[in-house]
């Protein structure tokens, strides 16, 4: 058994950088803080690559699967003999994969931010928060037990709150960060209930014990039941609610579009590549329990994922803000990943969905981060987020143009770019399990290609907008990450995931099912063609189509009014009937009691203040009468 204790450094280095920059960053020159942050992440990245190499290739014996290893564990909180909370590092195919993803994307974002955030007064604050986020996310994926994961889950939420509200002087940014935190916190309530139910039923928090096919978790599936589903199923559904909140699945998706108020590198790191896949990671981590013990919960996962992806795809077709289109695209792609997990079985060929979900997670991180960073470069050049204010930028921003185009082709699923492989596997898995879900995902693939190319043409082709000042290409420090990520999104498809990351750790053979692959490529190409016809040159066709589907267009443009519904429920129901009475009670009963106590004390002190009047005869009088009374009591009455 190889020694993986050094992996403890991977999350701890960003933590140290966070503390260093947070406490002393204001004294440094901005560039120094940026370099410190990037160097810290760079070291973590190198360690992650070394771990991946060692785990997948170096210490691997051919023919056997990949076992999950506890690299490090320490008992943090020992409450009773049965209830102990450990902290540690778990090395496992998916955690190693996530290490590579997180550190790579975070490193790219760090380098990019040195250029993007230049001139901002809170430069060092940004980098310290980025390091905090990296620490939290790395801790989350390396968690050995579900409680540790919950701790880091909340830490990730806090980092996201801090980063979305980075421009804290803008009220919209503050509101967005509050919304994100509150919505995900609300979902985390479900997560906590699920954790408690699960650990109470099985007696353990530990992942290795929970996911053991012969362990107590699966065995308890036949146990107590409630309303037709076993307790295990209920607890897994609750846990999934927590995951759905973090991953912006319907109906917890409302925070993701507003989270675009944060700086673009933040959107790239958190809301495209890492934090939002935490929910997918959670289900993947507990996958054996889901697949073997609670197939009903898996159905819930699949349908939520499927519905979210088509919901988001329809909305994305009508949005005009670059970052919002990309946000809904993220939601849609994560729907893909959830669905893929939901239709998967356990072991061998059955576990294709599991493998495909993780594969898609990997490739999505690459191209989505690339898309966001590219959008950031565009926004940096023209100082606006709206498509309407852009056009014909391919002449001015060549590198951004090429990398953005590569990312758009990737997301459309055109071979040989990476997303073709991952998306194809998902479609195959869906086809073998549930034809309706397959149909939904098939349509979504077409819509994805359509709206991404609509965005692409709107930015880089289209009308010849007059700009106040000529947009210039971004500096090298911003374009190099773009190029690295483009390289990743092109070639990542060739990584043999089917032998590395599988549902039970054993490799299986996988080949391209041309029966599914060819139609999926065709619908992607169809989407591209329709977008080209409608958007490449400026013409009235989009408005005519919007006019024909007037109502659908209006509803999709307003995101199906879900924000308004939530606001209504919050304001009219929760505020009026729950919050206001409680606030009244707090102000008039509890505060009144405290004020009353203070008032009584004050009144009493005024009343007995008169004893110290300074008048000698009064003192003597009190003395004499007190003596008389005491004598009376002690001599005659006692």
């Amino acid at each position, binding site marked *: 058994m190889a020694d993986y204790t050094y992996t403890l450094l991977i999350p701890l280095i960003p933590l140290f950088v966070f503390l260093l920059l947070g406490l002393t960053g204001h004294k440094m020159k901005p560039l120094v803080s940026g370099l410190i942050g990037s160097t810290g992440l760079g070291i973590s990245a190198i360690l992650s690559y070394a771990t991946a190499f060692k785990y997948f290739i170096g210490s691997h014996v051919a023919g056997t699967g990949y076992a999950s290893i506890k690299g490090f564990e320490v008992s943090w909180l020992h409450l009773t003999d049965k209830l102990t909370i450990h902290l540690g590092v778990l090395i496992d195919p998916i955690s190693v994969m996530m290490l590579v993803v997180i550190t790579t994307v975070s490193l790219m974002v760090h380098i990019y931010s040195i250029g993007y955030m230049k001139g901002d007064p809170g430069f060092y604050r940004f980098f310290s928060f980025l390091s905090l986020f990296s620490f939290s996310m790395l801790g989350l994926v390396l968690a050995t037990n579900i409680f540790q994961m919950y701790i880091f889950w909340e830490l990730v939420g806090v980092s996201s709150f801090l980063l979305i509200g980075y421009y804290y002087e803008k009220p919209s940014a503050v509101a967005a960060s509050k919304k994100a935190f509150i919505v995900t916190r609300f979902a985390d309530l479900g997560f906590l209930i699920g954790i408690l139910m699960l650990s109470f039923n099985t007696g353990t928090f530990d992942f290795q014990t929970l996911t053991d096919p012969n362990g107590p978790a699966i065995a308890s599936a036949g146990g107590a039941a409630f309303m037709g589903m076993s307790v295990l199923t209920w607890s897994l559904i609750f846990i999934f609610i927590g995951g759905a909140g973090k991953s912006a699945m319907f109906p917890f998706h409302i925070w993701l579009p507003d989270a675009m108020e944060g700086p673009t590198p933040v959107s790239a790191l958190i809301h495209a590549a890492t934090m939002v896949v935490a929910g997918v990671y959670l289900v993947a981590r507990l996958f054996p329990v889901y697949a073997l013990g609670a197939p009903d919960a898996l159905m819930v996962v699949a349908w939520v994922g499927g519905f979210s992806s088509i919901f988001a795809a329809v909305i994305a077709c009508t949005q005009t803000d670059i970052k919002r289109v990309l946000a809904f695209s993220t939601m849609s792609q994560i729907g893909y990943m959830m669905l893929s997990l939901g239709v998967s079985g356990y072991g061998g060929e059955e576990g294709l969905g599991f493998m495909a979900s993780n594969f898609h997670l990997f490739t999505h991180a690459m191209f989505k981060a690339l898309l966001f960073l590219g959008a950031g470069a565009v926004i940096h050049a023209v100082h606006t987020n709206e498509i309407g204010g852009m056009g014909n930028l391919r002449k001015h921003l060549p590198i951004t143009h090429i990398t953005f185009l590569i990312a758009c082709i990737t997301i459309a699923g055109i071979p040989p770019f990476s997303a073709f492989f991952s998306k194809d596997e998902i479609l195959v898995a869906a086809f073998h399990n549930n034809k309706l879900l397959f149909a939904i995902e098939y349509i979504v693939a077409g819509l994805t290609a359509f709206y991404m190319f609509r965005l692409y043409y709107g930015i880089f082709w289209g009308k010849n907008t007059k700009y106040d000042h000529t947009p210039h290409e971004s500096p090298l420090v911003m374009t190099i990450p773009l190029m690295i990520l483009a390289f990743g999104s092109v070639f990542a498809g060739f990584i043999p995931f089917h032998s590395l990351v599988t549902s039970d750790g054993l490799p299986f053979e996988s080949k391209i099912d041309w029966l599914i692959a060819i139609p999926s490529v065709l619908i992607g190409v169809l989407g591209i063609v329709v977008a080209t016809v409608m958007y490449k040159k400026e013409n009235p066709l989009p408005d005519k189509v919007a006019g024909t589907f007037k109502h659908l267009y209006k509803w999709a443009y307003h995101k199906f009014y879900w924000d308004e519904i939530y606001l209504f429920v919050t304001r009219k129901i929760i505020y009026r009937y729950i919050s206001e009475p409680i606030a009244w009670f707090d102000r008039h009963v509890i505060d009144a009691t405290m004020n009353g106590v203070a008032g009584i004390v004050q009144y009493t002190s005024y009343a007995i203040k008169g004893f110290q009047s300074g008048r000698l*005869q009064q003192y003597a*009088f009190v003395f*004499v*009468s007190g*003596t*008389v009374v005491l*004598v*009376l009591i002690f*001599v005659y009455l006692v």
Partner: protein
Amino acid sequence: MVNEVMFYLIGAMILIFSVLTVTTRRILRAAVYLLFVLISTAGLYFMLNYNFLAAVQLTVYAGGIVVLIIFSILLTSHLSERAVIAPLKQSILSALATLAGATLTLMTILRFAFVPNTGVDPQLNMTDIGNSMVSYNRDGYALPFEVISILLLASMIGAIVVAKKERKIKE
């Protein structure tokens, strides 16, 4: 017989003059009434055959302290000034407290049966008193004597310092 009459007379003088001391409005007269009280007390001591104590009482109390009080009255008020009577509430309350206390004390004292030592009347002469005052044997009172002398010294110095006129600071 004579003793009883004398006793009642002296007791009545004591009580009447002490009441007058605390209630009269004229301050100088209050001092004189106090003088009479002290002289009557000395008479009481003479009755008990304690000549030395009576003499000390007359000398120190009646002769020294009352003179001091009269001097201070003359220094701090003019002759026709009338003392202010305390407000009614204060008088009533203090009268009540006093009455309560007096009743309590009298009840306690009168219930207790003191066993008088019916022995022979001792003849105390000055030699005995003087010897025991300066002797440091078991029955000697040399220590209290010394302590009192220190107290007197301290109070003398204290009184002089307190009553000194403040020296004006020369500009």
